[in-house]
């Protein structure tokens, strides 16, 4: 090969863009999986680091919070909520990457193993909740981070504002 044609350059750049999109999707799925694992392990002090500096969270009835300081305050507040031995499953990711931005929808389950009876925990099996994450992600100098995180319960008892926040809409299949 002595010269590179315009067609070869176009094909190379297209290939690089497709690789970047796949790598980005992988990085975003790892980001979200690690986030939920840290929630499960109650490492609340680590959670704000998963977000872009100006990120927004909207978690059930807590109202929107913006910026790492407010996000950190929200998650550190979960420390005070007793939750003995719950299990978490994150599944069915649909992540769509568009340059330095991306969207992701996930299904979330929490399995409970205890309940409070007369102020004391008792072992209870079979109780579960299903939720949905609708998120946006942004590429930052530190890697992909959450830009927007919205979370609601959908089953067995959906959060009352599920329809108002648009989370009952049919999701895109790709």
């Amino acid at each position: 090969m002595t010269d590179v044609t315009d067609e070869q350059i176009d094909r190379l750049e297209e290939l690089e863009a497709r690789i970047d999109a796949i790598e980005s999707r992988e990085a975003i799925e790892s980001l979200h999986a690690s986030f939920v694992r840290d929630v499960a392990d109650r490492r609340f002090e680590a959670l704000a680091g998963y977000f872009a500096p100006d990120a927004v969270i909207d978690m059930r009835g807590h109202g929107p919070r913006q910026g790492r300081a407010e996000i950190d305050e929200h998650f550190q507040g979960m420390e005070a909520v007793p939750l003995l031995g719950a299990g978490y499953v994150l599944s069915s990711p649909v992540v769509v990457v568009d340059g330095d931005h991306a969207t992701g929808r996930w299904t979330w389950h929490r399995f409970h193993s205890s309940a409070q009876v007369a102020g004391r925990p008792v072992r209870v099996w079979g109780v579960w909740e299903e939720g949905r994450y609708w998120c946006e992600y942004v590429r930052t100098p530190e890697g992909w981070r959450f830009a927007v995180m919205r979370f609601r319960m959908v089953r067995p008892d959906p959060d009352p504002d599920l329809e108002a926040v648009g989370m009952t809409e049919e999701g895109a299949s790709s």
Partner: protein
Amino acid sequence: MDVTEYRSRLAAASARIRELEDVEQIRALNRTYLRNLADRRWGAMLDDFTADAVVSIRSHGERRGREELAALFGAMHAAGSPPDAYLLTSPVVTVSGDEGEAAWTWHRHFTELPVMGGAVRITGPWWEGRYRCGYRRDGERWRFSAMHFRLVAPEGDADVDAVLGVHPKGVLR
């Protein structure tokens, strides 16, 4: 763009695709391993490990190499074949050359509880665990070079923090 830069970028693209393929092969390895474990196909699992693999599963102690691992699988096989369900989720896999590592979340849903020498059907009880694994490219495929597994919920194993860096959840009293 001159030929040198073109070739360099093409080689870099090829390397990035290979790494993505490696990550996918590692995920497939771990998923197939767990499906074989769920189906109690112990014989098929041994070949998923390198000859010098180090395995530490809960209180079974550290096992090194396929011979010790075969003894461990034999003991697990003798414990029976309960019709339990297994989930393996949230993989976070990284690859560097011929080595890889990953964290996974694991669930087991029980369907039988022992009573008076028999067993009764009951659904609901579950365990949550974590895998921290090492992998090595071994010839044409990836194999486990290390596997550490501990329960984290509803009651974490006593050494889960020391082994996996996970604080045990609260224990019912």
